[in-house]
């Protein structure tokens, strides 16, 4: 197995690992949103501006979970494609070696067709992999977008929390937790994108 193939396997496998952490954090945001909603309800008019924000946070968390679920399915497809490409490349290399070793054997030329077919299959896999990586990067960008939106919401939450009197600390804690979660999501997804981006144009 070449170093590039190894890196490709690791890159694809790391997506699932990074995204499982994102999923945990997105669920935490969802919990924070439910918590915030309860606090805002108790705070009544003092946290009037905070109430619609909790719905946004919840919606964002749900969408992130949905996106990550889809990306995980996609990552599995990408993993299978990586295995397929590895097998096709190994076959192509072995076929070429067999042809070389056959030298002037009576039927050496009959190997040309399998060599050509193996090359085409290998190239198909490589093209498909690049296409799928591009699509996956697009989906990861959507998650990044959600993370950025979560940070804006966290900033707004802080402003609204400052007007919530005795509920200030509780609501600020919610804002902090959303902000922290958004950071984590952003960083994890960014790592996935860096790991994959080299394969988009390789």
């Amino acid at each position, binding site marked *: 197995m070449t170093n590039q193939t190894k890196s490709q396997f690791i890159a694809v496998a790391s997506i699932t690992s990074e995204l499982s952490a994102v999923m945990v954090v997105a669920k935490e945001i969802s919990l924070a949103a439910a918590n915030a909603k309860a606090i805002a309800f108790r705070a009544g008019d003092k946290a009037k501006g905070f109430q619609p924000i909790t719905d946004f946070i919840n919606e964002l968390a749900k969408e992130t979970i949905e996106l990550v679920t889809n990306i995980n399915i996609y990552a599995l497809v990408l993993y299978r494609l990586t295995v397929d490409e590895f097998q096709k490349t190994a076959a192509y290399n072995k*076929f070429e*070696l*067999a042809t070389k070793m056959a030298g002037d054997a009576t039927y050496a030329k009959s*190997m040309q067709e399998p060599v050509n077919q193996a090359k085409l299959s290998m190239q198909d896999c490589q093209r498909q992999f690049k296409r799928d990586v591009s699509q996956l990067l697009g989906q990861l960008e959507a998650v990044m977008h959600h993370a950025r939106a979560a940070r804006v919401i966290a900033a707004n939450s802080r402003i609204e929390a400052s007007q919530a009197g005795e509920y200030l600390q509780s609501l600020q804690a919610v804002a902090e937790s959303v902000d922290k979660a958004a950071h984590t999501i952003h960083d994890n997804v960014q790592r996935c994108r860096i790991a994959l981006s080299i394969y988009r144009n390789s």
Partner: protein
Amino acid sequence: MKMTKIYEGSHQWIMFGRDEGKPNNIIDTNQYVVRTPNRCLLLDPGGAELFAPMMAAVLHHAPVDQITDLFASHQDPDVISSLGLWDQALTNAKLHAPAIWEGFLRHYSCESIEYVPIPDNGGTIKLESVELQLIPAHYLHSSGNFHVYDPQAKILMTGDVGAAIEGPDTPVFVDNFAAHVEKMRFWHQRWMPSNQAKRVWIERVRNLDIDILAPQHGRMFKGDDVKRFLDWFDALQVGIAV
């Protein structure tokens, strides 16, 4: 890869082995080819490491599109881990292998090759005018195991039975049976698990007319050495590791 024609008649048997390019840390294997005018059967085609030299050697005898049949005596990697590569090279081929190993062998990848499961009581492979018999050899050593008998060529291909581990320059036929015995003893005692299975197999193959007994490792036996081997094996206690 050394090639030795061991039968020439209406069809041919060719033995392949003693691959000089083989990595030292993998076991040496014998592969056999049965060649008819338009078809070619590979018996125990070998491990993935051996695919390229084996294919290159076969191309001296048959074009790729006439490699129509593969046979795996059992599931071991040195027997058939090259399956995934043959699967991509051959467009119209069948794999004859024990029925009970089908789900296992498919792990090597078997998509374009048709898996023809051999039932426990054996069967035949028809290769143009040649009919080869699939002789049950279960528990010798694998729980689903077959040998191939060609009544016309009088050759019995015996998988791991009759095997010996020797150096790369070893002759292809046993030339001194008494001296060869010690090279086979531990192999058979350790790898073959059942005295009962051994006895049943010996009774079965004593009824066959055999000129050459062709194992998957080491040297082949011919003439009187075939009977000598069967007598020696009959007297040997196997399954010693328990």
